[in-house]
Structures are given as structure tokens and as C-alpha cells.
């Protein structure tokens, strides 16, 4: 039988919207699942319910055939017996215990020699072997994270939960660990759920993406698939598809669909037909997939060539966010190098070039 995690977590709050998040996924084929959503969407509520730290008001949680929670039958398995490792956002290392005691904290039932061997093994694997006698206050934030990971994984949990694992780190450490963390988690071989609101983190860490918005799971799927084919406009906006253009169906040609952006000067856009488009739809384009060419541009295979004028230019780290008015407002993310080379500035005429495959048509749902 396939090993799965299935949850339906319902929590009601005196203030703020209720959470009703349900999803199910297989545990073996995509070990690292990113639970992605903006702050306030209920990620932490779901995580705490999975860890057994909070009891949902209703619903159920099943892990690999075992019922962890069932609101109807009054089943609630306490965190102690779920064998779930949890890495807190601020790591929550025990400040009065050495690194070795922290890593070995969850090891019980085995002999002292076994425990010591396991601690040494975990410390070796997470590169903290020479820190074992230190106290947590003497560690850098990156070292703390690795100790927290070693501590959570030492008792061989069946599921690992990470709450915003990179947000407590300073920017350079975060960059460094983002790449490293995925390797560590893969090597651990334990299915993991990583909570984050950062889409770069989601892309870097996840095999699978579960998008949580306003307390509900909107989409679960392979990371690239969710990013490139969001099921609805909310997901598109949340995963950072910069351009979500309300449009109307114009015609269908050879498996392609032509829509016109709603508005007085709304341009036509050609896209691959996703099926199910009736009338209104959102055309979603990621900023990275909008090419800018000066003036009228030059010939290429791209289906969409939109003349426009640059309205705004905003530096974002190594990228520049360029806003172009071409009947609709399009956002293009280009490298600073390119922006400088093309001398992209406000008021300049450009052509925005979009391949049909880059335009994702999401049939608009009317509720």
C-alpha cells in the first residue's frame, strides 16, 4: 500500500478567519514538500496540528495508516508518540544544555554508549562534531540550525517538520544554507514538510509544493508545475507570477487560444489552450518570462509582441523589475546587467516579447 499523509485541519479563532486545510500526498515519491503561503494563511496552524502541539477543532490526520487525530472519534495522539521531528523557526535549542545534550535529548531506551554513538554520528553528519561541548549561546545562527536539525533527526522520526527554517538567519547565511539545507534533508531520507512564505526558498527546497491561502490548500503538485501552471489566480499571485491579466476569450486556433486583455487598449495574447476556457480567464505570465527589446524589437519565434512604454524601474537585488504599459501593465524581471545595457528607463519605448508557452491561461472561476 502506498504510504500517505492525509490531513483535514479545521481550526476556528475568536479573531481572524478560520482554517480549513485539507490535502493528501504520497510520502515516498517526493520527499520534500513545501507548505507555501503568505503570512497569516494558516501554515503554522497546520504545522502545529501535524506535530500534535495543538488539537484542531475538527477534522482528521492520518499518517502512513495511523490515525493521529480524528475529531469525530475523539482520537488525539500526543506529540510524544507521533515520532515527528520539529525544527522551530528560532531553533529552540535548550540554552542550559550543551550541543551534545541537545542532540541526544530525544534519545531514550538505548544504552548510554548507543546514545553517545548516535550523537557522534549525527554531529558528524551535520558538521557540528567539533562543537559538541559548546553551549547554544556560543554558536552562530547557521550552526544552531544544524544542531536543531541533528536534534530533531537523532530519534529517527518518521516525519520532519521545519517552520520557516531560513528566516531566522541573516541574509548571507541564508543564501549559503538554502543550497546546503536541501542536501542535508535529502540525505536524512525522512519525508519533510517545510513551511515558508518565500518563493525562492520554495523553489530551492521543495520537490512538491502545497499552496495554502486563507486557510485552505489551493494546489498540491510538483514545484515547477505549481509555479508554471497555477490552478487559479490566487495561487498565481501567491507563487509570484507577476502578471495576472484578466482577459476574455477571442478565438481558438490550432490548439492555441487567443484572449484579449480586458480594458480599452487591452492587447491580444496568444497562449497554449489549457482547456476549459469559456469566456473570462486570467492570463498569467511570470516576470522572468517577459523579454524586453528596445524600440520595435526584432523578428523571433515568439507569438506575442507587445509595443509599450516603460512606466517604472525598481531595483531588486540582482534583478530589475521593469513595469511596461502595453495596454495592460506588464512586469518584467530582467537582470540589472541587461537593464543597464539596454538603458531601460522610464518613458522609453520597448517591445515586450512573450512566448505562447509562457502565457498560462487560468479559466476564471465565478463563485
Amino acid at each position, binding site marked *: 500500500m502506498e504510504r500517505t499523509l492525509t490531513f483535514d485541519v479545521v481550526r476556528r479563532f475568536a479573531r481572524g478567519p478560520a482554517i480549513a486545510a485539507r490535502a493528501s500526498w504520497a510520502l515516498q515519491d517526493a520527499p520534500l514538500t513545501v507548505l507555501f503561503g503568505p503570512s497569516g494563511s494558516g501554515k503554522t496552524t497546520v504545522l502545529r496540528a501535524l506535530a500534535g502541539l495543538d488539537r484542531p477543532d475538527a477534522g482528521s490526520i492520518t499518517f502512513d495508516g495511523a490515525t493521529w487525530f480524528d475529531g469525530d472519534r475523539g482520537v488525539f495522539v500526543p506529540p510524544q508518540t507521533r515520532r515527528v521531528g520539529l525544527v522551530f523557526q528560532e531553533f*529552540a535549542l535548550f540554552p542550559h544544555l550543551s550541543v551534545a545534550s541537545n542532540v541526544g535529548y530525544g534519545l531514550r531506551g538505548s544504552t548510554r554508549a548507543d546514545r553517545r554513538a548516535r550523537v557522534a554520528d549525527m554531529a558528524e553528519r551535520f558538521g557540528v562534531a567539533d562543537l559538541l561541548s559548546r*553551549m547554544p*549561546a556560543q554558536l552562530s545562527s547557521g550552526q544552531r540550525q544544524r544542531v536543531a536539525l541533528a536534534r530533531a533527526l537523532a530519534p529517527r522520526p518518521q516525519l520532519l517538520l521545519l517552520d520557516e527554517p531560513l528566516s531566522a538567519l541573516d541574509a548571507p547565511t541564508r543564501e549559503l544554507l538554502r543550497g546546503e539545507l536541501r542536501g542535508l534533508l535529502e540525505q536524512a531520507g525522512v519525508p519533510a514538510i517545510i513551511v515558508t512564505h518565500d518563493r525562492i526558498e520554495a523553489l530551492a527546497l521543495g520537490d512538491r509544493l502545497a499552496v495554502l491561502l486563507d486557510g485552505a490548500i489551493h494546489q498540491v503538485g510538483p514545484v515547477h508545475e505549481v509555479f508554471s501552471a497555477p490552478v487559479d489566480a490566487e495561487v498565481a499571485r501567491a507563487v509570484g507570477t507577476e502578471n495576472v491579466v484578466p482577459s476574455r476569450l477571442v478565438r481558438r486556433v490550432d490548439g492555441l487560444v487567443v484572449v484579449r486583455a480586458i480594458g480599452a487598449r487591452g492587447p491580444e495574447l496568444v497562449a497554449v489552450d489549457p482547456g476549459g476556457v469559456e469566456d473570462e480567464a486570467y492570463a498569467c505570465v511570470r516576470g522572468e518570462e517577459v523579454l524586453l527589446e528596445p524600440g520595435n524589437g526584432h523578428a523571433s519565434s515568439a507569438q506575442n509582441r507587445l509595443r509599450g512604454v516603460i512606466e517604472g524601474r525598481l531595483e531588486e537585488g540582482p534583478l530589475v523589475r521593469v513595469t511596461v504599459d502595453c495596454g495592460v501593465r506588464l512586469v518584467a524581471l530582467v537582470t540589472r546587467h541587461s537593464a543597464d545595457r539596454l538603458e531601460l528607463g522610464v518613458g522609453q519605448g520597448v517591445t515586450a516579447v512573450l512566448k505562447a508557452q509562457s502565457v498560462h491561461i487560468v479559466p476564471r472561476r465565478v463563485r
Partner: protein
Amino acid sequence: MDAAALTLSVKLAGFTTAILLALGLPLAWWLATSRWRAKFLVEAVVSLPLVLPPTVLGFYLLVGLGTRSPAGRLFEAVAGHPFPFSFSGLLVASVLYSLPFAVQPFAAALAAVDRQLIEASHTLGVSPAATFLKVALPLAWPGVLAGAVLTFAHTLGEFGVVLMVGGNIPGRTRTLSVAIFDHVEALEYPAAHATAGLLLAVSFAVLALVYALQRRSLFRWNER
């Protein structure tokens, strides 16, 4: 100075502190972590001795645990002697009277322990009771020590409840503060001076210790 009274007071204070550590810590842990709505009622009851005149507490104890009440007869059956005018009667009264002096600092110190550390311990498979011993208590111990020391000092100097419940039997219920009262009534000022001076010195030393303990620099892991 009355050596018997000194011995009795120290013994009473020591036993009271030990009992309040055993009873007060679980109560304080519950107060610090419970989300029960009516918790404030328990908090109010615990703090009652702070505002109640000792005579009121003593009076109700005498009525409630007197030889004629069912609770009093139970006390007599267990202790082997009646509640009033006995050392164990004094002990019960002192535990109640010093309850807030122990539980309030305990609860404040335990509540200051980062909740996530407790939760981390739970997810690592450690039971709530073991988590209390391995995480909460070691991190809260300055506050726990302060509460214990305050309890000891407060019991050492208590007067009203002792007089109401225990009376003034030398060697059995005559504590230091009662002895001072006797000395003053008998115009034995030098003896009163000696005893009062001792209590003053001990009380100051205790409070100085409590405040010194609360200086965070003593506890390196509390530094931020």
C-alpha cells in the same frame, strides 16, 4: 535569647518551605501553563493570604479544623492529636499563609520559560512531567530559589496566625515572633532587642540574596 523559640521557628520555616516546594511547584506549573478560563479564581485564592489579616485565616482554620468539625476529626485521626495548639497545626497554617510567597515567584519564573522549549521537548518524545524536570525547572531555578527563600523568611517572622492557631506553648508553639511579643509585654527590652535584631538581620540578608539572584548576569543562558 530564647533558644527553644529559635529552634522551633527554624524548624517550622524549614518544613513549610519543603512542603511548599513539593506542593507549590506543580501548582505554579499548572498556573503558568493552563489555558483554563476560570484559572483567575485559583490565582485569587492563592493570593488571598497576601491581603487577609492573619487573624482571619487563623480563625477560619480553628473553626474548620477544630475538634468539632469533620475535617478536624480527620486531622486528629491522621496526626494523633487535635489541630489547635500543636506543631503540625502550625505547619498547616504556615503552609497556607505562605502559599503566595512561594507560588507567585515560582509561577512567574516558570511562565518566563520559552514555551517553544517545552514544545520542542514534547516533540522529542519527552513526557510533560519529565519536561518539567529537565527543561522548565533548570531554566526557572533562580525564581524557584527566590520563592523558597522568601517562604522561609516569611514563615520565620509570622506572628498572627501562629498566635491564633498555636497559642504560646514554650518549645511547642512558641516561635520567635511570639517570644518577642512576650519579652516586650514583660518589659524585657534587652531580650526583645536580641531576638528582633536577629530577625531583622536575617530578613535583610534573605532579601539581599533574592535580589542578587535575580540579577541575570548570574545565569549566563538568560543573556540575550
